[in-house]
């Protein structure tokens, strides 16, 4: 990835480069969103338990296990898979939601101190990518769920510096995201800065953010709903002074990395020994930090693999619930989908990318409108609706397309690329045209037409 170079020789955050530093922070948050989302969509949260159980019974009986015992073991193991798949999805979705919250908090910070945030087109330009300025650099893939991908997530959220040696500086350097926010906070705390409270922000009390929803819920083995997020784990902050700026930054760091005492073992491995007190990110100690959420998924994956192996079964549990997504796909490199007219997959993927990008266009719009109900309507009927009822829907629908490449079939996946909206017509009119192009080839998405037409018409900044 071509990283944005914010600084030539400076490695400190100062009042002069504070705006660039906060923009870098915003882009760090944005970079995580498509990566986490991609892995989220690779998980089938409700796999077919009967199919899993039936297959396990066959394997167990073929190894000599009596049928009754095989049935019992298969029921237990298949239930464990059902719980794990759903829980992994719930945890990753809860992190995605909080990364979006962090993007808004950082944007509020920039709006108060400098001016509007730049969001559109600021997602990684391609994959593999890297976090802007992170030292050492490490590769981040758009990849389905795996232990390797979870290790990447843990590196992103690590509260401790990673063990590798530092490399070339291309942006203001930091070894953990918390350290970078700490540099911004130090600058804010040690300087008498002006806060412009007249510029619009995304503020609490407007129903813009809720910590829990059904996608952050999973069911335990007894099918009791479990909530991944705590009600008190955070909210938007209206940045109006030093105290509120510090509050926003503290929340970002605590939700993400959490306690600096947690983190990788000295040798870079994940500590799967349950610590005496896990690292929570809320006052009531009910919600784990991002790092601990990912560590829990990572460790449980290994535990389940070993459990399967203890019965003489294959320890590759991912095959039961992970979709056959490619790694680092792009729309331009997608071949044609099997069984559909040429260009179908490209048209659907392009529409998906345009919807994804338009969410950022609308978010920027929220930072331009404070009077009347415009901001509220853009957020609730534009951003919210796009995320849940358009983007999420297409992310599901595109998976009904598959393609053949390098000797194997893949399920088509969302690529979350920046769509380059042109300047000659409004982004929404371009979105409608892209929908028309896609639905002509892929009528499955015809139900989205009204939803796209209902979106607010927000211009580029």
């Amino acid at each position: 990835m071509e990283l944005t170079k914010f600084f030539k020789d400076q490695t400190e955050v100062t009042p002069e480069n504070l705006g660039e530093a906060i923009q870098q922070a915003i882009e760090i948050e944005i970079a995580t969103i498509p990566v986490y989302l991609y892995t989220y969509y690779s998980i089938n949260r409700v796999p077919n338990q009967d199919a899993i159980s039936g297959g396990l019974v066959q394997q167990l009986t073929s190894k000599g296990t009596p049928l009754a015992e095989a049935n019992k073991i298969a029921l237990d193991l298949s239930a464990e898979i059902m719980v794990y798949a759903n829980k992994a999805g719930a945890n990753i979705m809860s992190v995605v939601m909080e990364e979006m919250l962090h993007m808004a908090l950082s944007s509020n910070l920039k709006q108060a101190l400098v001016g509007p945030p730049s969001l559109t087109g600021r997602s990684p330009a391609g994959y593999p990518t890297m976090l802007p300025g992170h030292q050492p650099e490490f590769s981040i893939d758009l990849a389905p769920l795996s232990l390797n991908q979870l290790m990447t997530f843990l590196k992103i959220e690590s509260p401790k510096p990673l063990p590798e040696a530092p490399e070339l500086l291309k942006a203001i350097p930091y070894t953990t995201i918390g350290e970078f926010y700490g540099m911004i906070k130090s600058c804010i705390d040690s300087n008498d800065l002006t806060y412009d409270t007249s510029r619009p922000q995304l503020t609490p009390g407007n129903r813009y953010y809720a910590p829990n929803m059904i996608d952050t819920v999973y069911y335990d083995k007894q099918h009791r709903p479990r909530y991944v997020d705590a009600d008190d784990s955070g909210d938007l902050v209206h940045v109006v002074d030093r105290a509120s700026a510090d509050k926003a930054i503290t929340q970002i760091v605590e939700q993400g990395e959490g306690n600096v005492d947690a983190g990788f073992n000295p040798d870079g491995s994940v500590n799967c020994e349950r610590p005496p007190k896990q690292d929570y990110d809320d006052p009531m100690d009910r919600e784990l930090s991002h790092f601990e959420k990912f560590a829990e998924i990572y460790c449980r994956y290994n535990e389940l693999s070993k459990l399967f192996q203890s019965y003489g079964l294959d320890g590759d549990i991912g095959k039961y619930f992970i979709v056959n997504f490619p790694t680092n796909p792009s729309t331009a490199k997608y071949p044609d989908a099997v069984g559909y007219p040429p260009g179908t997959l490209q048209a659907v993927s392009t529409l998906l990318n345009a919807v994804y990008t338009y969410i950022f266009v609308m978010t920027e719009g929220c930072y331009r409108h404070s009077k009347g109900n415009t901001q509220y309507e853009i957020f609730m009927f534009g951003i919210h609706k796009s995320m849940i009822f358009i983007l999420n829907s297409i992310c599901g629908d595109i998976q009904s397309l598959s393609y053949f490449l390098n000797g194997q079939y893949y399920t088509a996946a969302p690529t979350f690329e920046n769509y380059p909206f042109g300047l000659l017509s409004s982004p929404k009119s371009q979105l409608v045209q892209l929908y028309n192009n896609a639905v002509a080839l892929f009528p499955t998405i015809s139900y989205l037409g009204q939803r796209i037409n209902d979106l607010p018409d927000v211009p580029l900044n």
Partner: protein
Amino acid sequence: MDEKESLTTENSCGGSADMCSHPTPPAPKPAAAPTTSAATAAAAPAELHACMGLNACKGHDRFGTNSCAGTGYCATAERHNCKSLNNCRGQGGCGLYGTAEDDATPGANECAWQGSCAVPIQAERYSTQGENKGKSVWVLARKLFEERMKKANRTYGPSPYECGPPQAWLVQSLGSYDSCGSAGNKYCTFGFNDPAKDAKELCERSLHHVICGSARQTESASAATEVSCKGSPQAEVSCKGSPQEA
């Protein structure tokens, strides 16, 4: 006006008090033929509401056959499967997406697209936010409905299902049913629980729940303590291998 008073009072929507006290027992209805907008416009407009037992007038359920306020079988609001897809005020189901404030107003949202979940509201749906977290959305919607009826000096009868329409009943009645979310079926088992028992417990827990710190239980909740929940679906519902919901 409470239910006892209704025994001697004519229902202003045309249903007799006797009818209000003896609703038709719950039974799955066949899927109704789609009502065209033209046909709907020709008839007297029904108040749009989000679910069974939330109708303000006689004949204002989806089938137009209910005898009294509060006894209707199904939503008159357009069916939709998730947040922000409701057409108008009062038509949002609520419970699975949205904020704590949204979750506090199932069937009572202020405007189009401000609902937080599917209509109709299945009995198994629970709130994910706020005071009602982990408790029945339909029971809260019914409570709000009863409060609205009392404020308007209106008579109402009991709902066909005490805790709202079970999902299995909705599937039988409507031909299909879907509510939002990727977490899977709310009425389900992995082989280690009894979903009917879970549904009953959700119902009972929700009826006894005290909303907003009030020390007084609602009248319907008090009355409900004497009878067991009737909302347990009879049909077997599989949660195994269901496709990802939108």
